[in-house]
């Protein structure tokens, strides 16, 4: 199951990253060797093992349904690269 240029292209597209030719070449090679290394996990029989999503035995953490005005909201909104009439402006969405 070798990792190919097509694989790199596909995930780069999913991750919304444009790669230069060099990057494409290097990443294909590097990810291939990393994945080959990572495949050593297949040596292990884990059929009866529960996956760990959380290392802590913590559950049921909630907050109450209360509105708290946020003092930092303006500061956060102001960071927008482009703000018009209170809206975050983005380039045209072409489907």
């Amino acid at each position, binding site marked *: 199951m070798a990792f190919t240029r097509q694989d790199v292209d596909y995930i780069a597209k999913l991750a*919304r990253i444009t790669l230069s030719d060099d990057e494409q070449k290097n990443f294909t090679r590097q990810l291939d060797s990393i994945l080959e290394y990572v495949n050593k996990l297949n040596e292990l029989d884990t059929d009866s093992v529960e996956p760990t999503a959380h290392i802590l035995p913590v559950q049921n953490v909630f*907050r109450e349904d*209360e509105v708290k005005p946020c003092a930092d909201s303006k500061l*956060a*909104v102001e*960071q927008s690269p482009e703000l018009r009439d*209170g809206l*975050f402006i983005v380039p045209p*969405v072409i489907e």
Partner: protein
Amino acid sequence: MEFEPVIGLEVHVQLNTKSKLFCSCATVFGAEPNTQVCPVCLGHPGVLPVMNRKALEYAVLCGLALNCSISRFSKFDRKNYFYPDLPKNYQVSQFDKPFCYNGFVTIHVDGKDKRIGVTRAHLEEDAGKLLHSDAGAGSGVDFNRTGIPLLEIVSEPDISSPEEAYAYLTALKSIIGYLDISDCNMEEGSLRCDANVSIRPKGQKEFGVKAEIKNMNSFRGVLKAVSYEIDRQTEVLLCGGKVVQETRLWDADKNMTFSMRSKEEAHDYRYFPEPDLVPVVLTEANIEEIRKYLPELPSARMKRFVMDYGITEYDAEVLTGDKKLADYYEDCTRLFNDYKSISNWIQSELLRELNDRKLPVTASSVCPKKLTDMLRLIQNGTISGKIAKTVFAQMFETGKDADTIIKEKGLVQISDPDELKKIIADVIDSNGSIVDDYKGGKEKSFMFLVGQVMKATKGKANPQVVNQMLKDAIG
């Protein structure tokens, strides 16, 4: 060849919690853009979500009302995709452990009950609103809506006609209205519906290829879009074509669905467990605690209305469809004992006035007390049923009670024979030939004479008294 449709609905319901699902921002509809936001719901670096307890309770409550099993262990997952209305570029949702699963909604179509399965109901965060502008100047994003709790209710493909789809949505909205966990306003977007539609030759077990229909903004729109889509797919198949799996948008102006085209670069959402949130583990006791808040639901209430008030199933269904309307009806029944008459007046006059003005029943200027006071005036003969309609319209318009309007407008019914004697005599005199017709056995002529008396009294004459006096006079 005959085809049958297979329809499944995905309904998103915005829960009406005061604050958002994972932060303490307000959720009020219609606020100025980006004023109900904070670093958390804007997806700034370093922020973490903390779950709103009420949202969980609402989700479980809804699950119970939809006859679902409630998961003892649930968790959240990240659904990864890029869109500018999604601040983190992943949506916190539930993938394989939703809060509720395996339920059903009973619908009533063509006089028959049918169960529509509910596959699952899970909680997720809403996205913001992308406001497209023309002329390629880009789009604007408002994140006020981002992070409002959404309950996604997924039906089984049990729906087999556009009418059933409509009935399912109506039933769902009714139940959620009873729970008071959402405004369920499709125009404001607090209820959204996508439909998966496919058709197959009658009798075939396998499903056909489905299209996902989006962008419907009313229940009637869903009805029309699904009908259109069934027709479209039927035509494609009859012409020897193939239905393509795709997303189609409903255009309410053109009454058509359109393919979204290109966007379908195969979705690869890369779900994985949300590490920033911990699992939710519910015990039997937790669930029973929430069950206590389950009110009498529409179907039960309908049956009770038929039993307790002796009204028809149809009337009971109309009255119980909206909890507030049913409450209104029951308030009336405590004040007046002609339950059938109350039901008729609510369904004809009251609902018409409300619908004309697009008002909810809670905003009616005629309260149960005023309505039943008026009905009592009909019962005791003070006004006729016909005059009452005018009175009611005035009541609704002005907010005054029936008594006041009757007095102001002099609408009290004339039942005094002395007052009517002269008028009846005049009518007989000036309609000699018609009187003869009646005497000759033409029953209809009698009604004409009554009508003439009513006309002369501007409708105020008591019809029973007029009938009797006319009969006596003509002999």
